[in-house]
């Protein structure tokens, strides 16, 4: 069961890290200075949450029986560490796992493209995050509940920020309206996965640790509809939903994200920075 909780925690950590990574790519390149600062600040929040979650995931991993520890992850770099009996930390989990061991949803690894695509991705994710973490506060897992408690205030701000941008672009100029609609449509196919539980989530259900996605899904839809309507935009038509991220089957984009993110630790292993 602890392995399932490890995967669950990693899934939340990976979402936060990869989403933060994408947002941080805007730093220095934003459309206006105030927003450059805002988006970097939001990236920092995600990164901070990722760290808390990875630290907890490392604890969970280190507490597994030795025979389980050597089979949980696939990358030779991690295998080697584990076989030498080393305990893992937040950086090992972020920098030494390969793509198939990452469990973030496909949505967060999608490229920034332009401001509208970035806002669409953030908006869909922030709505989910908000209702998800609100529910996670009541998790039977004390650590997850406390991380949720700490994160919720900043997640509420993220949601306000991205919702306001959807409205501003939707109800701005003809061009921004069109761009925002297009971006919402294009990213829609990645939203189904947010509220579809993976096997490890279902396996954990009876412990009361995970969030019941059945409760999050209708709230997500209601909020998304509300904001899109206020923005004078249309809810994208229902479509075939992509999934796989939670089980380690990603889009092509994740490989490039990891190549960049993990470069230093891979090129110069086992050093203090």
């Amino acid at each position, binding site marked *: 069961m602890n392995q399932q909780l490890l995967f669950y925690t990693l899934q939340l950590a990976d979402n936060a890290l990869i989403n933060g*990574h994408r947002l941080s790519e805007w*730093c220095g*390149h934003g459309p206006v200075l105030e927003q450059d*600062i805002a988006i970097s600040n939001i990236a920092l929040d995600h990164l901070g949450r990722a760290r808390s979650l990875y630290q907890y995931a490392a604890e969970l991993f280190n507490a597994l029986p030795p025979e389980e520890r050597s089979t949980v992850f696939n990358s030779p770099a991690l295998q080697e560490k584990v076989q030498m009996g080393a305990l893992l930390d937040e950086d090992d989990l972020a*920098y030494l796992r390969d793509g198939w061991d990452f469990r973030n949803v496909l949505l967060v690894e999608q490229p920034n493209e332009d401001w509208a695509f970035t806002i669409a991705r953030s908006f869909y994710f922030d709505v989910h995050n908000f209702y998800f973490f609100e529910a996670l506060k009541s998790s039977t897992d004390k650590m997850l509940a406390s991380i949720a408690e700490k994160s919720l205030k900043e997640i509420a701000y993220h949601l306000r920020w991205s919702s306001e941008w959807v409205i501003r672009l939707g109800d701005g100029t003809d*061009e921004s309206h069109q761009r925002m609609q297009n971006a919402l449509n294009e990213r829609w196919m990645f939203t189904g996965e947010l509220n579809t539980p993976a096997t490890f989530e279902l396996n954990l259900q009876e412990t009361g640790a995970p969030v019941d996605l059945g409760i999050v899904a209708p709230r997500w839809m209601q909020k998304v509809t509300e904001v899109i309507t206020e923005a004078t935009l249309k809810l994208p038509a229902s479509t075939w939903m992509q999934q796989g991220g939670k089980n380690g089957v990603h889009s092509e984009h994740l490989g490039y994200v990891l190549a*960049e993110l993990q470069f230093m630790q891979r090129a*110069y292993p086992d050093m203090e920075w």
Partner: protein
Amino acid sequence: MTEPSLQQQFDEKVASEIAIEPRDWMPDDYRKTLIRQISQHAHSEIVGMLPEGNWITRAPSLRRKAVLLAKVQDEGGHGLYLYSAAETLGISRDEMIEQLHSGKAKYSSIFNYPTLTWADMGAIGWLVDGAAIMNQVPLCRTSYGPYARAMVRVCKEESFHQRQGFEIMMTLANGTAVQKKMAQDALNRWWWPSIMMFGPPDADSPHTQQSMEWRIKRFTNDELRQKFIDVTVEQARLIGLTVPDPDLKWNEATGHYDYGKIDWEEFWNVVKGNGPCNKQRLETRKKAWENGAWVREAASAYAGKRRQRQQEKNAAAEAAAA
């Protein structure tokens, strides 16, 4: 009141260390000098986000990544305070940005050098921010009030930046052979450009004398450069790195380090646009600005619509009340 007496009042204020405020009379050249200097400073913060921003996605640990991201974000914040301070002198932020993009306004040449390894994050914090602090601490007492107040905030954060840079260098210098090599390589590349940051020697500095008289500047370029060298050479020694200047020598008589000849030809070339990254940096800034145009237009169109709706609502409420 006649012009000479306004000038007199201004001179007296400056002489008795009373801050000049936006509504006070000031000589045109004082205003121009400040706009030039503050906007150049603001642009340096914004362009300066790029060489370090280059490593945010590749930082070697989550802690380093968070600190670097926060630092680059701080620089954006400094840009914001400084643009606001310059705006009190009667120039808009858009005009200043236009001057940056057209090449009319300059920014610190140091940001035209590339960041090639992680150690450059250490070198920039330690040397570039260290040099910036030497320049900027006296500006907390500069004669123009809004600039001085902006600088107080900037300096607080810069000293944190400098410390984190030095800490990166120290960690590398105490690390493995390749890390030490990385640190030394970064020091080799950043040393000379850093000491050039104080500007040309006093004899060739066109603005220094007037700026000293107006108390915009408090120390000359050479004074600040010497102070920086004296402090930094000791710090390099402390962590076992070698400053790449064979002529560097403690001078018992002056109580300062003597240093080798600075390549001013390189300095003027980088100022003129021939540095390794001048084109790249400016193109990146222009591209961000151009790509953001439709976003800014949308935001202002939306703000206009909201205002109008509010006015209509108020008018309707008044009509209903009447």
